[in-house]
């Protein structure tokens, strides 16, 4: 049973708050080579696509060429007759599911929708929507078979921009979706599943008292997580009814749960083996291929491997929402904010449940607002169902709020960092949607930004400008398990269930090593399958180093306690009389090291396994502040990043290199979102740039080094002070870059991406006096 872990005396001993002396750590804060490193630099690491099984069949998916159409009929006979084809399935081969909401750890989903997203039922809702699947002796034959499946479509009118989809006369995606508003359900179906509303204070009255009021409108394009490894799954439905799934997933247990629900089998009938995962960023939580491969396997009696191509990743998996935001801020002359109002519409894609909830909660999360109103709309459009993408919903909201803050600073003649310092949230501040902040490190990031070499340096030259912006992410806790086996040589094998996307095996192992006074290399971490470790939630929400690290810490305490009892047996004393300090057990003059005692376990009662199951409170929020210098080419409108500094509160950086890596990687994804990336749709609602050539992510040549400043305001709810770091760094870049562009050329861009053609047009309009 999972226990709620709260900061208690047992953990408090290891922890000093920000005012106390910094604790001395042996392992935490060092930069050891990661445990899986050699496999990853030699090509030996086993990713999903590298798995090969005896008798393996290969599956491919037929996808809709229409953004919106009714499926009148599917004739698969010619495909089935092709030599080498083993099975052909459609949505009708899936169990018929009733509406049921499943929690996926970072967002929830209606299982009937999820099923229809894996293989369409009656309608296709976006170009790229899966319609049928084939298993064959190899992928080429499967591909040929797809061309032989005859689908009779009745094309329907499509809509793919939120404001169009919200109109009364918009084409409806679903006739059974009714707007839920303040607990009430509308009578007429619409493309708006949810209207959220938060309000605090008297907003209209407060705006009337403001010295300055600025209201602006913002648009952001749909963007993709862009993980380099395409989705891949291999499923084997054995003749005893057990299903084994090898997959690339952020959560093996959520993949198991979703697959079980969609296939209508008990969770214990499925084993999910998480392979190495080639990036996820939120996009590898929802299942796409797993249940399809399983049904194909059941039909053909062989394990079936399915790998998406890059076009399928763009067109058939969840990108993050495009959005429209109208945002208004009111402030006094001294810069103190008196009121804020935001109206946000985020596209959910083809099925309800987009990122509007976190968007609404994040939009005013950085500042104290005595009066505020937030309205948010989840909007159905003919695009792939949106998925989480690193701080889902926060980046769009921050682009709007931080851009207006920058304009406010300019209007009031206040330094933009100072304006933020005047209004920044701190411990005890209340977020507009209700929660009160615990100890957080936002003001510390602003202070560090102000004192940074970058902010103090002088920027000279024409068409160059500097901007800054801040960003917020909740961070989450959720459930994690760990088991740790003491080996006779004094090392410990750590078994945990968090798939490792960015080096978390090591950040978790380091916490166990610290707890036991061992070296990082003395802990051997293994990411286990769903039969070999206790339930563990997804690698998402910046939770793994916090929560699974906490599980490792408690498994370490469990080992320590058991080892103390063994030392007591050796010395014939009471276990309480055995003390522990820096990997040495003592009783009076007697002492024995952890390693020595590990070699004597068999004489003192047998093996020791430490274990922990946690569902912790207090992940506490992450804040980032970024500074950027850009140069604009006035001929082309192209923005070049000259210098970039990311500042973030990490609580305590367990492995500073991998914390920096999160900050740098998140910043660069944000830079791509700001300057280049977008789903480009034609007037038929079809994506026209579904390749890495045309959906242009940043390359090494587009960037400078990304400087980092790690701020450490320890999280009081974690024994080592850890806060999640993965997501906050994607939030500030678009707003920071927009501010820098304004500083460089005097125009404000309020639509993402700020691609050369938009900057060029803004310069042209400025020259024309528009």
């Amino acid at each position, binding site marked *: 049973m999972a226990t709620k872990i709260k900061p208690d005396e047992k953990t408090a001993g290891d922890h000093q708050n920000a005012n106390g002396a910094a604790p001395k750590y042996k392992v935490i804060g060092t930069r050891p*080579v990661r445990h899986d490193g050699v496999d990853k630099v030699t*090509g030996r690491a086993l990713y999903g696509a*590298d798995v*090969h099984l005896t008798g393996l069949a290969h599956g491919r998916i037929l996808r809709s060429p229409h953004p919106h159409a009714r499926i009148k009929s599917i004739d698969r006979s010619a495909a089935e007759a092709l030599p080498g084809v083993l099975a052909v399935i459609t949505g009708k081969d899936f169990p018929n599911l009733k509406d049921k909401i499943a929690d996926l750890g970072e967002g929830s989903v209606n299982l009937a929708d999820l099923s229809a997203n894996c293989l369409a039922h009656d309608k296709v809702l976006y170009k790229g929507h899966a319609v049928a699947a084939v298993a064959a002796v190899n992928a080429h034959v499967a591909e040929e078979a797809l061309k032989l499946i005859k689908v009779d479509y009745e094309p329907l009118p499509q809509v793919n921009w939120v404001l169009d989809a919200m109109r009364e006369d918009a084409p409806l995606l679903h006739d059974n979706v009714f707007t839920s508003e303040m607990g009430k359900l509308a009578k007429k179906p619409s493309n708006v599943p949810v209207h959220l509303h938060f309000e605090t204070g008297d907003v209209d009255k407060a705006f009337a008292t403001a010295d300055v009021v600025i209201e602006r409108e913002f648009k952001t394009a749909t963007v993709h997580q862009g993980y380099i490894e395409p989705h891949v799954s291999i499923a084997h439905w054995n003749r005893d009814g057990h299903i084994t799934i090898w997959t690339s997933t952020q959560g093996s247990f959520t993949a198991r749960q979703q697959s079980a629900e969609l296939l209508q089998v008990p969770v214990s009938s499925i084993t999910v083996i998480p392979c190495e995962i080639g990036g996820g960023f939120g996009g590898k939580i929802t299942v796409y291929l797993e249940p399809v491969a399983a049904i194909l396997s059941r039909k053909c009696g062989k394990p079936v491997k399915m790998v998406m191509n*890059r076009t399928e990743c763009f067109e058939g998996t969840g990108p993050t929402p495009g959005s429209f935001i109208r945002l208004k801020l009111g402030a006094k002359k001294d810069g103190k904010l008196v009121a804020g109002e935001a109206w946000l519409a985020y596209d959910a894609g083809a099925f309800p449940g987009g990122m509007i909830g976190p968007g609404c909660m994040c939009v005013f999360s950085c500042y104290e607002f005595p009066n505020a109103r937030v309205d948010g709309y989840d909007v159905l459009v003919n695009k792939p169902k949106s998925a989480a993408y690193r701080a889902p919903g926060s980046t769009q909201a921050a682009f709007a709020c931080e851009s207006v803050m920058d304009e406010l600073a300019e209007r009031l003649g206040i330094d933009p960092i100072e304006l933020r310092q005047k209004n920044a949230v701190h411990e005890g501040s209340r977020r507009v949607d209700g929660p009160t902040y615990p100890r957080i490190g936002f003001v510390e990031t602003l202070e560090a930004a102000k004192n940074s070499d970058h902010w103090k340096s002088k920027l000279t030259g024409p068409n160059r400008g500097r901007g800054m912006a801040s960003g917020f992410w909740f961070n989450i806790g959720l459930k994690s398990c760990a088991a740790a086996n003491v080996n006779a040589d004094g090392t410990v094998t750590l078994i945990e269930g968090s798939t490792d996307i960015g080096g978390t095996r090591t950040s978790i192992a380091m916490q166990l090593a610290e707890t036991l006074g061992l070296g990082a290399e003395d802990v051997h971490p293994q990411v286990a399958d769903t039969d070999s470790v206790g339930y563990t939630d997804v690698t998402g929400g910046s939770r793994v180093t916090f929560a699974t690290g906490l599980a490792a810490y408690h498994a370490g305490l469990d080992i320590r306690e058991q080892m103390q009892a063994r030392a007591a047996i050796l010395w014939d004393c009471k276990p309480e009389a055995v003390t522990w300090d820096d990997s040495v057990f003592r009783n009076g003059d007697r002492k024995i090291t952890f390693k020595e005692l590990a070699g004597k376990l068999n004489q003192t009662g047998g093996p020791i396994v430490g274990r922990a199951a946690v569902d912790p409170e207090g992940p506490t929020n992450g804040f980032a502040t970024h500074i950027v210098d850009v140069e604009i080419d006035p001929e082309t409108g192209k923005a070049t990043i000259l210098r970039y500094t990311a500042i973030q509160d990490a609580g305590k950086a367990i492995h500073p290199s991998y914390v920096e890596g999160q900050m740098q990687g998140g910043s660069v994804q944000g830079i791509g979102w700001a300057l280049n990336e977008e789903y480009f749709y034609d007037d038929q609602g079809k994506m026209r740039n579904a390749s890495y050539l045309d959906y242009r992510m940043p*390359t090494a*040549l587009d960037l400078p080094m990304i400087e980092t400043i790690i701020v450490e305001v320890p999280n009081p709810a974690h024994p080592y002070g850890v806060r999640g770091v993965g997501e906050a760094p994607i939030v500030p870049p678009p707003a920071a870059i927009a501010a820098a562009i304004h500083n460089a050329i005097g125009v404000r861009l309020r639509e993402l991406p700020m691609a050369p053609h938009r900057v060029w047009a803004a310069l042209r309009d400025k020259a024309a006096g528009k």
Partner: protein
Amino acid sequence: MVKKSHVSTTINGEAVEFLCEPRQSLLEVLRDTLRLTGAKEGCNNGNCGACTVILDGVPVNSCLVLGVEVEGSKITTIEGIATESHLHPIQQCFLEGAALQCGVCTPGFIVATKALLDHNPNPTEHDIRFELAGNLCRCTGYDKIIRAVQDAAAVLQENRS
């Protein structure tokens, strides 16, 4: 089915023969026929560099080369970069510099770096960024990769002197 062709080539210093269909890419042959799965497929159309191998001294996207084209060629894949007992300095520098996160682009980067440092042992930061622009990484923001390549260049220089 199309008749398969017989191809003789040298991979990582060893003579290798294989049969392949004309439509099969070198990447597919390496991964599925020869089970050298270190080269990764990220896009299968030459835009991500995860499948980079060195073909007769030149870094190529193996997804854009046909299996039948490598008759008589010499190929180095990620599996051929380390010696029997030691990592190559490039691999060591990637490890020590934390220049990887998910690791799926890493084989391509290391092979491309090998090709770069083989012909330009003392590259500037711009040289490195230019030469590696064909390799996409979505996790690191490239910073630690560029530094690892700089470190590897320095180590290799030192080893030579």
